[in-house]
């Protein structure tokens, strides 16, 4: 008896995951387990230490004689506010992620040529996205669990519910918006003899590109309703009609959006998929018009490298610069945002900005130039085919990665340090903030450099680790104070330098 298509798709996914786990080496499995537990423990620990501050009633409720009588209602309000902003941040990322999950994940291209019914494909996509949403929510909510044993069980319940439900609501709304936009874009007549009614590359096509933003706007409203409803549960310490109403409206919006999305999916999914495939696979000559060969132009940084490594450095410069032009812009933008946040740095406000910035640092680490540099599309191993030793290759790559990071972090740090100097206030704080920023950038780069090179590929575990390190540093700084944070960072930096120093040097045959 053949399996149902839906069960076939889901069981193949499950089987692949189990195979991946069972056939991984013992070291990999142990490393992943340790990292997962370490992350969970770190989040719980950080949450535990932050609980006291998270449970302080907001300053608005203070009166000359103390807190308002109604202050009971706000005992976990600061935590809920923070959970809301984290939810919104996750929503922002997840809105884009839904697009990836629907159209661009490699597993879709494995099954899109097979005769699966639309319902099975839709459920498969929904399950994949739902599991990811749940994972995001679950991980983020761990930070708030310690509120339960620090005096505010309802604070913990409300924050956890908000963080788990928000990505799911974002998923539902995102799914509908993306599929609707996709249907609008690709549902043009192509058969029997009609010309496609819209241009898949521009014009109306841009609507599809902006869809994640529209989805985020919708999701933010729904999450706000969710928060308002759940806040009432915190205030009254029980689930009540207001809570039910807030949750019901948000969930209903997501369900209706998903249903509308299903209709668009059923009718036009393959056309949308084809549109994305085209955009992904066809190499447009978008940059070729103005690009000319520039390999014969030396870069000034090359003088710091031995002659044997200069070619590799120049290759990185041209290949990476052209291949990942967008990432190069996104990366400094994120650092700039971090820099701006640190610009207003003050030790008193440390917990607030620390917890707000942590996810952004994680994102920055995902966009790290070194990671990109090691992705299969761009990675070439000169030492395997050319008379370039691995040592020289590593030197060129390190300098290149450092250049990429410092190019944007340097001015950023100067800005943070320089402006307060003119104002002659908080100089030390800003110097520390600059040092922290620069240190984070270098640590992320070196960590990924050392670890990715050691394994031969930029494994996700490494990237995660690289994201966690600065996050932990900031968390540490917020909990234990700046000197300890800087100390931890210095230690990690030294460790990474040491790891980099002991890279196995392979000499390729000429």
């Amino acid at each position, binding site marked *: 008896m053949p399996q149902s298509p839906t069960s076939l798709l889901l069981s193949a996914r499950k089987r692949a995951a189990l195979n991946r786990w069972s056939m991984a080496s013992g070291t990999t499995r142990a490393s992943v387990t340790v990292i997962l537990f370490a992350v969970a423990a770190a989040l719980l620990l950080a949450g535990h230490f932050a609980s006291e501050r998270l449970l302080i009633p907001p300053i608005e409720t203070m009166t000359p004689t103390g807190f308002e009588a109604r202050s009971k209602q706000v005992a976990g309000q600061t935590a809920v506010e923070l959970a809301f902003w984290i939810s919104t941040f996750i929503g922002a990322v997840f809105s884009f992620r839904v697009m990836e999950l629907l159209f661009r994940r490699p597993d879709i291209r494995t099954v899109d040529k*097979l005769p699966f019914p639309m319902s099975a494909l839709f459920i498969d996509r929904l399950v994949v996205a739902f599991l990811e949403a749940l994972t995001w929510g679950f991980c983020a909510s761990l930070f708030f669990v310690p509120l339960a044993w620090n005096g505010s069980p309802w604070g913990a319940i409300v924050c956890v519910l908000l963080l788990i439900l928000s990505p799911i609501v974002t998923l539902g709304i995102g799914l509908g918006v993306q599929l609707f936009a996709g249907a609008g874009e690709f549902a043009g007549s192509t058969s029997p003899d009609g010309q496609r009614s819209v241009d898949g590359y521009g014009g109306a096509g841009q609507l599809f590109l902006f869809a994640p933003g529209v989805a985020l706007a919708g999701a933010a409203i729904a999450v706000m309703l969710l928060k308002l409803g759940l806040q009432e549960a915190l205030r009254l310490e029980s689930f009540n009609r207001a809570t039910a109403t807030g949750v019901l409206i948000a969930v209903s919006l997501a369900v209706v959006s998903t249903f509308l999305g299903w209709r668009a999916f059923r009718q036009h999914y393959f*056309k949308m998929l084809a549109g994305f495939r085209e955009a992904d696979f066809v190499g447009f000559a978008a940059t070729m018009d103005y690009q000319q060969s520039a390999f014969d132009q030396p870069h000034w940084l090359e003088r710091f490298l031995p002659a044997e490594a200069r070619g590799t450095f120049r290759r990185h410069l041209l290949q990476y610069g052209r291949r990942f032009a967008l990432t190069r812009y996104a990366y400094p933008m994120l650092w700039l945002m971090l820099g701006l946040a640190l610009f207003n740095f003050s030790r008193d406000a440390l917990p607030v900005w620390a917890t707000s910035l942590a996810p952004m640092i994680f994102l920055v680490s995902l966009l790290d130039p070194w990671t990109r540099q090691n992705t299969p599309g761009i990675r070439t191993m000169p030492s395997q085919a050319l008379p370039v030793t691995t040592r020289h290759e590593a030197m060129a790559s390190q300098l290149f990665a450092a250049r990429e990071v410092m190019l944007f972090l340097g001015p950023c740090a100067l800005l943070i340090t320089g402006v307060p100097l003119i104002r002659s206030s908080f100089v030390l704080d800003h110097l520390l903030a600059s040092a922290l920023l620069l240190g984070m950038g270098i640590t992320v780069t070196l960590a990924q450099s050392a670890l990715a090179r050691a394994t031969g590929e930029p494994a996700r575990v490494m990237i995660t680790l690289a994201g966690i390190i600065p996050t932990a540093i900031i968390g540490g700084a917020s909990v234990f104070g700046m000197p300890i944070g800087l100390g931890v960072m210095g230690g990690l930096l030294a460790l990474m330098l040491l790891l980099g120093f002991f890279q196995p040097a392979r000499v390729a045959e000429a």
Partner: protein
Amino acid sequence: MAPLLEIQGLTKRYRKLTAVDGLNLRIEPGEFVGFIGPNGAGKSTTMGSIAGVLNPDEGKLEVGDVDILADPIAARRQISFVPQHLELYDYLTGLEYLQFVAGAKQMKDAERDAQIEDLLEMAGLTKAKHRLVKEYSGGMARKLAICAALLGPPKLLLLDESFVGLDPESTFTLRKRLVQFCEGGGAILLSSHILDMLERICTRIVMLVDGKLVLDESMESLNAQFAARDGVDTLTDLYMIKADKLGASETTSRDSEE
């Protein structure tokens, strides 16, 4: 006889570049069609459009009596496509992957197992069937993809550069199997640059240059021409003439643009 595949006026543009320009093509059951042309001629785009993984800008595509664009699921039941760049489940074993594809094609268990064993044997993958696809070499992965495509079996098989990287033994066995598939009433559209091989196994040759059809003749008729014409003794000779006559220099500039 009703055609197995009918393409009318297929046009596909990538912005300013017209990759396929008003292509008309009919393939009958039992035909083994060699699809040739210079790089960038539009072969993969045509195959992608037939397989339903690319949206054509104009034209009508039918497999059997099914409109490929209007009813993609029904079309996928009749077509198997092995793309140039393979897209497999890396973390399934070879056997699991074939079982998965057979399940997607709603094959009954007994029939499925027999076919899978047979295909694995044919491809020389029996010993490797419990290894993860991720661990397969390029050639092994390609053979596995062809085995998966042959499951069912489909009515129309689209093979895009599927002989690249295969060892001589596999090429030989696979060629035999594909010929058998056509003798059984299936049809194949095989894109390849190995012209000597196409000359030996195909019943018809179709050639694209700059997205336009420049040659569509049966192998029988081509062989007669080779025998009669001086200086044109093989498909390679004919290919060089066709490609050059219709703008090989233009093709080169298109390639560099892409």
